[in-house]
């Protein structure tokens, strides 16, 4: 006799995540030798972003920031200063008079995190403290929109700052509005699923990792919170290089995307495995590596768990437009093994 797995699973909210014992997607360190273990999986990680913060359940940004900053701390022997843009990460980590940051941290404005980073790095240089490294960080709104001028300035001057953009594809802190990183079709508070072309427009938006590469800065990478090893390796590599560096980390947002908190890591993986979010590295303007898709999935698999795309799934034209974007990414970045 057969069970009815679908319904029961749904009712019990089982996660559809395959846990790998080894390799890039592994979650534990059990079978790895010491040097291949993740920073996150070690007892002596710095906990730069400590517990007690006010992020939503299943927040991808909190995970991404924790992974990235702990790795950068390890890479710099704990000599790190972080400069934060206004946004979720800033708000949920520093509700006065508490702070979750165990590292020196400054928040100034929404649009100037990169410039603050430049200033801190300049101060470290004149003080002969170039062993102290600087990270600037923000969400996609603070990076690709309002902070873009300062970001581009920091890039072109090749200032010694690693800028990390936690990309959750919208202004989540202000109540889920569209940013220039919001994908076509997505429902946001300013791109509602109404009218003949529901959701965000398909012909708008910008690819900041590629724009960063056009500045010919020493290092650019995209990463996703579903693969800790890859993410940590990219941050570690970035910290081994001087000059302007940019990492954009894909961080699902349950609140803004209408997804279950337990789906955060899974969604990050499906975005990569469908080709929606290509992972690559670029050095001095050239792409130097891409992460191959293991098991290609149709974009529906990625869209389905997200309410922001509910209307897209019922709209064949929009659905094929999303699939086209994924297919183009696969071609452009060579995401499938030949």
């Amino acid at each position: 006799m057969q069970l009815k797995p679908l319904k029961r699973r749904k009712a019990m909210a089982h996660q559809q995540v395959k846990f790998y014992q080894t390799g890039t997607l592994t979650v534990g360190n059990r079978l790895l030798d010491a040097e291949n273990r993740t920073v996150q999986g070690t007892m002596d990680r710095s906990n730069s972003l400590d517990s007690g913060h006010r992020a939503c359940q299943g927040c991808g940004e909190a995970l991404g920031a924790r992974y990235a900053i702990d790795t950068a701390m390890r890479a710099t022997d704990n000599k790190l200063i972080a400069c934060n843009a206004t946004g979720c990460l800033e708000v949920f980590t520093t509700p006065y008079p508490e702070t979750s940051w165990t590292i020196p941290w400054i928040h100034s404005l929404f649009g100037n995190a990169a410039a603050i980073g430049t200033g801190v790095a300049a101060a470290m240089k004149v003080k002969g403290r170039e062993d102290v490294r600087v990270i600037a960080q923000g969400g996609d709104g603070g990076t690709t929109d309002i902070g873009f001028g300062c970001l581009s300035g920091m890039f072109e001057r090749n200032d010694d700052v690693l800028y990390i953009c936690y990309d959750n594809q919208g202004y989540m802190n202000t109540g889920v509005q569209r940013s220039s990183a919001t994908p076509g079709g997505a429902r946001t508070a300013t791109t509602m699923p109404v009218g003949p072309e529901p959701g965000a427009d398909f012909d708008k938006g910008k690819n900041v990792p590629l724009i960063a590469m056009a500045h010919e800065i020493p290092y650019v990478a995209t990463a996703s919170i579903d693969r800790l090893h890859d993410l940590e390796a990219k941050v570690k590599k970035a910290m081994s290089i001087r000059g302007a560096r940019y990492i954009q980390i894909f961080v699902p947002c349950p609140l803004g995307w209408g997804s279950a908190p337990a789906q955060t890591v899974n969604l990050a993986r499906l975005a990569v495995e469908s080709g929606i979010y290509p992972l690559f590295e670029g050095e001095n303007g050239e792409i130097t590596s891409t992460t191959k898709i293991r098991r290609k999935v149709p974009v529906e698999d990625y869209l389905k768990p997200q309410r922001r795309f509910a209307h897209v799934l019922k709209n064949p034209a929009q659905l094929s437009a999303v699939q086209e974007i994924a297919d183009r990414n696969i071609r452009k970045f060579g995401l499938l093994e030949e």
Partner: protein
Amino acid sequence: MLKQIEGSHGVAEAVALCRPEVICAYPITPQTHIVEDLGALVKSGKIENCEYINVESEFAALSVGIGSSAAGARTYTATASQGMLFMAEAVYNASGLGLPIVMTVGNRSIGAPINIWNDQSDSMSMRDAGWIQLFVEDNQQAVDMHIQAFKIAEALSLPVMVCMDGFILTHAIEGIDVPDQKQVDKFLPPFVPRQVLDPEDPVSIGAMVGPEAFTEVRYIAHKKQKEALDLIPQINEDFKQIFGRDSGGLISTTNTEDADTVVVTLGSVIGTIEEAIDEQDEKIGALTIRSFRPFPLEQIRSALKDAKRVVVFEKCFAVGIGGIVANNVRMAMSGTNIPVYEVIAGLGGRPITRKSLHKLFKDAVKDNLEDVTFMDLNKDVVDRELEREHKLIQAGSVAENILRDGGVVNAAKTT
């Protein structure tokens, strides 16, 4: 040593003597010469141990400065006019975070219509941003006040704007006594930051503050500005001891004790006004405000207590109400029956002439002034434009019409 140099160059040399560690440069007329000269001083090695950063906007200029100051570096930048507005968000942020940045403002008007010439609308637009604002009369004072500004800023952990009239001072060449390094080192100790980003002692700077504490934080900013009312004269005294020059402290006065009419002003125009006073027979005193923020209410009130009338002469105004400085002076004079007239002059670089000042003084001593006077306003041009606007729905651009009426541009289009 007395040198015949441009005001901007003098300021650059003064800033250099203060051993700045980070300088953010973005060009905007009329402050540009200052950052240009500083660039050469850093690049040639005359300023040692200093990062000179060519940024992409004024917003970045002050933002980089916020970062460097918060990381413990003595930080300088300069701006003017539209640049001041473009960095406005960072202006408030620098003071809110309590960062002792020194910034020169080469005072210039604000558009539209775009205008590169001098008035004081730019500094005034940021008068309530929490910065200390010091207005200088001449280039010697510009040099001296920059050196004092770092000391004031670092003593209070508050940013300071040194406001100098664009072109009139920034581009004027006159004799300036530029101090030597030993004197400045004696006067200005190395910067010890009140709070600093340091991996050995991690702090979070710029955390969110809710309704439960915001009022108190803002009130302390106000209290600290009030403390500057004692500190500015004190630092001026210290400066006098070492350099032998007096920059005047909060206010300077000339013949205010025995004059019935006192003209109050700020910036370089005091030179013109004092000369015009000397040339005529009316007994008129003058008061110039050096510290506009904090505003020295007591000192002004006390200096003006014996006047029969006060004429506030200013190069800025608040559209929809009138004089900005005048409103502040009225607050100082509240409870007295001394009338305060306001005269708005020199907007967008309009010359302030001897002839107009003499007429103004004559009218003033007879109380023959309106509450608000726009000096040398061309009433015919204004009336004509207003009539045109009342008659025509599509009357066109005010600025262009007025230029055409004034014969400045070709009267191709007639209405």
